[in-house]
Structure formats: structure tokens, C-alpha cells
């Protein structure tokens, strides 16, 4: 099931005819296939709940019992009502049980999910988009009547849409971002080059379509929160941004030739985005470094330091566990794969040895892919070279600061499940005093050095290839 989820989240495009449900939440944004049964649309309930926590299901004849955290629910094949937390909930259609796989009508999600998740759920049935909690990403549009004019989209959170062009239009497709309409869907501008823009939603995605009478180019800035569209010849990044542009295509040296006369393949920018995973957490305390010091606490502080250092260098970073939460290795990998980082860094701490140990994945045996289905245990295989390159950049930065470093490989989850460059960092104390692991000065030194390594990796990647061709997407590339 997890293997399927990875495929669906990493290859959300699929066939254009396939129906998809996109789920947006603070835990993860992901896409699931919709099944048509007897004229109704159905979805697997287990798959929807999986990214939110531990979920299990058991079939007993016609009864299907599902357990999510401490919540129990019972569904009966053919019945249009279910019992969740002891209460009857309407499904607005018959529950289906197919090979122990529980399917609920798509329309029932608004009533079923709040019972499990204890948070408001907003479901747009027509566009098949489900919002769990307050996660909507709003945007504003402004036409800057400079010469040439520029259309500036400002989003409330970073976005990384697929951008493509056709003669007479440039469109941005938001598959993973919870972008919602903030105003009227059809906008008209008093500009001959870009007369209008249209917002639409369908099949689990949102799209902004900008009409143009000249070839247009899009550039990103403000840590992915701003997209500026301008005529291709004079394309410039948006002004007044707090950070340097993140997208390689915004560099003035080599803007991609996005011409309206050449619809495909269209270059699309790759956002350099890092996921920092503070390992362990919650009930999993990791190594008891001392009587008072636990690995889960040390790595959380370290992860926050590293995020800060990366942001100082203009690199967007997200700490995967930013609290004392319990996360399984699968949940960590699913989250990382869903947000498509360029690099995933798992942080560990040890009491033995000194300096830093860096690991890439030691892939397990017998992990063949099955057609388009990528083996979950070896999802990292296609990215191992990138991981080793990232490891090399981090090791070089550490050596430059004369911090002892060892580079190894390890069968350490979830490295083998991550579809991006993935490195584990195990930090040992600088000397014999384990308490120094929690010292802000030591953490700051290491975080700063590792951030230098990641920045060097970004610069190295930006130099030879500034764009990723959309016609040949990689499993971890933005789509």
C-alpha cells in the first residue's frame, strides 16, 4: 500500500483521464486515485488516513473495522451508514469492500473525516480537492505597468507549480499546493501583452492560465512566494524581495527560451528546497546520551539551527518533526516524498566517537521494481548518485572547518524510501563531554558548516543545469 502511495504522490500526473483526489493538510499534501463504481465516485479510506497517523483495518465477513489512533469505526458492505466513535455517520451511498479494501463514496468525506481527524475538513467535490484544517494558500495578482509590464502573483505560502507554455498562454498547474481562489476567477488587465488570467480547478489540481500576445516567462522569488510573469526578452525577477531568487531560471545569465511557438518540451524551474528530519521523537527517545540528555531533543534543537542557517543562505528548509511528535519511518518518507525536496537530511546524535558521521543509504537486497511501481524499499536507488554527491559536499564543508568526518553507508530508514538526495548526519560530541551535544555554540558551528555544504551543493547544481526539462520528469522532480 505504501508503495502505491509513493507512486501516486511522486507521479501524480498519471493519465489525464484518471480521476484523482488531492488532499492538503499540515501533515502532507498527496494525491489518490478515485474509483468509479455504479455511477458513483469512491475512494479508499485507509489511504486517506494513512499520512495522518497509525491506521489499521480488519475485515470480518461483511464488516470492515478501521482503527485510527484511538478511534474505532465500523463499516458494513452495502450499508449507507457507518459507526464512527460509536455514532452513526451518513455515507450518502453504499460502503464497498473489495479484497479487504474499504471504499467510501467521495461525497461522504465531508462527514466521515472530521470524525477521525477532529479538525475542520473542507471538500470541493467538483474539483476533487480536500482541505484538512486551515491550509489554504491564497494569492493576489498585481500588474506592474513598467516597461515591459509584469504580472506579479503573491502567494501566502511558497509554491512550486508546473509551468508550461502554449502559443498564446502560460499556465501554472498546482498539484501539491493548496492554492485557492481569492477573488474573481477571470481577471482582465489593461495590458496588450498579458490581457487576462483565469483561475480554474479540476481533477485535484488548480490552474492559473495567463493569456499572452507575446512569449512569456515565469520567474520565482521571495522564497517561492512570488511568481512574476513577463515578456520573455526582458524577463527580470520581481523587485523588493527579502531573499535572493531561489529558482535557477531567474539568474540573468541563462534565462530559458520559453517561446510560445515551441510548446514542448518546456523548461521548468526546480526550487532548491531542503527537508530536515529530526529523527526519533515522542515515545521514541533515541539514544539516552546521558541521564538528562536524549537524542530526540538534541536533534530537534540541531534541526532548528540548521533550518535557520539554511534560510540565512536563501535556501528554503522545512523541519519535518518540529515538535516532540512520534513519527514512523514510513510517515517521514511519505512526507519527504510528497514535498519533493532537493535534499533530505536526517539528523541523529551519538555519545560515542567525536565529530560527524555522514551516511547514504545501503540499499536492501532483492528490491526489484514492478513495472511503473517503484519498490518502496529501494525508492532511493535512482537518487543514490545525488545522495553521494550531497554527502561529498557536506563532508568537504566539514573538513574545511577541520571537523572530523567519516562517510559511510547504512541501512537506516527512511533513507532507502526517500525519492531525493538523502543523507543522514550523526553528530557526536566534540570531545569527551556528551553534554556538549546540546551546547548552542557547538550546534551553531555544525549547523553553519552543514548549511555551507548544502549551499555549495545548490551552487554546483545551478551552474551546469539551470532547468529541468518538463518532458522527462524525475520521480522526485516538481511536476
Amino acid at each position, binding site marked *: 500500500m505504501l508503495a502505491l502511495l509513493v507512486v501516486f504522490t511522486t507521479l501524480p500526473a498519471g493519465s489525464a483521464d484518471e480521476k484523482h483526489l488531492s488532499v492538503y493538510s499540515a501533515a502532507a499534501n498527496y494525491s489518490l486515485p478515485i474509483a468509479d463504481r455504479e455511477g458513483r465516485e469512491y475512494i479508499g479510506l485507509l489511504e486517506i488516513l494513512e499520512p495522518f497517523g497509525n491506521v489499521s483495518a480488519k475485515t470480518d465477513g461483511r464488516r470492515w473495522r478501521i482503527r485510527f489512533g484511538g478511534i474505532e469505526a465500523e463499516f458494513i458492505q452495502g450499508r449507507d451508514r457507518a459507526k464512527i466513535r460509536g455514532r452513526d455517520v451518513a455515507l450518502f451511498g453504499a460502503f464497498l469492500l473489495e479484497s479487504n479494501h474499504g471504499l467510501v463514496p467521495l461525497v461522504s468525506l465531508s462527514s466521515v473525516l472530521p470524525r477521525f481527524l477532529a479538525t475542520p475538513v473542507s471538500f470541493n467535490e467538483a474539483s476533487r480537492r480536500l482541505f484538512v484544517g486551515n491550509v489554504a494558500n491564497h494569492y493576489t495578482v498585481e500588474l506592474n505597468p513598467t516597461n515591459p509590464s509584469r504580472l506579479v502573483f503573491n502567494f501566502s505560502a511558497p509554491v512550486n507549480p508546473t509551468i508550461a507554455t502554449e502559443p498564446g498562454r502560460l499556465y501554472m498547474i498546482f498539484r501539491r499546493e493548496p492554492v485557492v481562489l481569492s477573488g474573481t476567477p477571470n481577471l482582465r488587465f489593461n495590458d496588450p501583452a498579458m490581457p487576462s488570467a483565469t483561475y480554474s480547478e479540476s481533477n485535484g489540481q488548480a490552474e492559473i492560465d495567463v493569456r499572452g500576445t507575446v512569449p512569456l516567462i515565469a520567474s520565482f522569488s521571495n522564497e517561492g512566494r512570488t511568481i512574476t510573469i513577463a515578456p520573455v526578452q526582458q524577463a527580470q525577477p520581481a523587485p523588493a524581495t527579502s531573499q535572493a531568487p531561489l529558482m535557477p531560471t531567474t539568474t540573468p545569465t541563462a534565462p530559458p527560451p520559453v517561446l510560445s511557438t515551441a510548446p514542448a518540451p518546456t523548461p521548468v524551474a526546480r526550487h532548491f528546497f531542503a527537508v530536515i528530519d529530526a529523527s526519533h521523537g515522542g515515545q521514541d527517545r533515541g*539514544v539516552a546520551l546521558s541521564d538528562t540528555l536524549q*537524542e530526540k531533543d538534541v536533534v530537534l534543537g540541531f534541526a532548528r539551527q540548521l533550518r535557520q542557517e539554511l534560510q540565512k543562505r536563501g535556501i528554503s528548509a522545512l523541519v519535518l518533526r518540529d515538535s516532540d511528535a512520534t513519527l514512523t519511518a514510513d510517515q517521514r518518507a511519505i512526507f519527504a516524498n510528497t514535498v519533493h525536496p532537493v535534499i533530505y537530511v536526517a539528523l*541523529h546524535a*551519538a555519545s560515542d566517537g567525536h565529530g560527524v558521521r555522514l551516511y547514504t543509504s*545501503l540499499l536492501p*537486497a532483492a528490491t526489484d521494481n514492478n513495472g511503473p511501481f517503484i519498490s518502496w524499499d529501494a525508492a532511493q536507488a535512482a537518487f543514490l548518485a545525488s545522495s553521494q554527491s550531497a554527502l561529498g559536499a557536506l563532508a568537504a564543508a566539514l573538513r574545511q572547518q577541520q571537523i572530523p568526518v567519516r562517510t*559511510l553507508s547504512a*541501512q537506516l530508514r527512511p533513507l532507502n524510501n526517500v525519492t531525493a538526495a538523502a543523507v*543522514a548526519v550523526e553528530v557526536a560530541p566534540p570531545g569527551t563531554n556528551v553534554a556538549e551535544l546540546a551546547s548552542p555554540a557547538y550546534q551553531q558551528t555544525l549547523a553553519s558548516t552543514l548549511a555551507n555544504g548544502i549551499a555549495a551543493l545548490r551552487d554546483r547544481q545551478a551552474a551546469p543545469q539551470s532547468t529541468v526539462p518538463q518532458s522527462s520528469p524525475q520521480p522526485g522532480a516538481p511536476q
Partner: protein
Amino acid sequence: MIPRQLIFAVAVLLIGALALFVYALRMRGRVAQVPATAEDLRPVAPPVAGATERVALFIAWDDAGALHPQSATIPLPANRQQRAEELLRALLRAYQDKNSPHPIPPGSDIRSVYLVDPGLAVIDLNAAFANGHRSGVLEEELTVTSLIQTLAANVPGILKVKILVDGKDRDTLAGHADLSTTYDVGAVNQLVTQMQSQ
């Protein structure tokens, strides 16, 4: 009118039932106090008899963070599976020595080694081994690679190794080294070389 004897008998029965209930509660509390993770430290197999052979044990050294081969002469039975088990028990004895370069918990043992499917070896560790093992990426990796490399170097034909604990699947050895999947002997061999070269 209820006879007085009947009232007395019912009262006695009720008092008896109450006493039994209290006793049962106390007994339940005592059972709960017994540590759930108590290990059985008794030996699980008789001493092995057989001709002695010279084998290479890949010993983990915590200080160096690497494995180094060390030859040992141990009695080995003719049966291939029993040989594998005795080989790993010899490795564990080396780790349980007071001067061990890579200490493992007391009571650690190999329950069985199964040589199944061409090329697959399944090592079944006892609970004392995993539950008391030190936690850490490198510490755990040294243990796992030491077991696999020692087995593969002395029992020909092993290509993959799966590790169980108490006959069951387990996610990690002690929070880090993955035990949920199967190890590739060739990849482990490369890792051992990599460890020795740094």
C-alpha cells in the same frame, strides 16, 4: 420471613467472594510488577562437539568504528546450519569477553540460523541481544555487519541475510539499524571495506 441461617450463609458467601476478589487484584498487581522484558539467560543449546576448524571472525572495534578479521579455532559440526549457528555464537563469545572492543548485552545469543532459499540466511537473535543493545547508528551497524560478514566469509553461498529477533520481524536493532528488510551480502562487504579504509 427469611430464615436466619440463610442470611448468615449468604453473608459468609459474600464476604468470601469479596476476599477472593481482593486476593485476585493483589495477584494481578504482582504479575504486573514482573518486568516484561525479563530475559531468559539460560543456555539454549548443548555444547557442540566436532572437529575444530580455523575460521575468520569479523570483530567490530568501537574505537576505530570498523571491522577487523580475527582468526579463531572453534569446534564446528558437519551440518551447514549448525556450523552457521556455532560460528555466530563464537563471535558473540568474543564480544562478551570482559576486554571486548564492542561489548554486547549479557545473555545475548543466537537462537537459530536458517539457511533457506538459495543464498538466503536468516539469523534469529534472542531478545536479550536486541533489547539490551546500545543505541546509535554506528554501534548498531557494526554489530549487524559483523554478524553478516562473519557468516558470509565462513559459510559459502550466502547472498542475502535477514535478521529476526525472538523469531519475529523487528523494525530496528536498537532504534537505528534497519532489520525490517534483507541485507545484501555484497553491499555489506563493500561497506566493511569502506570502514576499514577510513
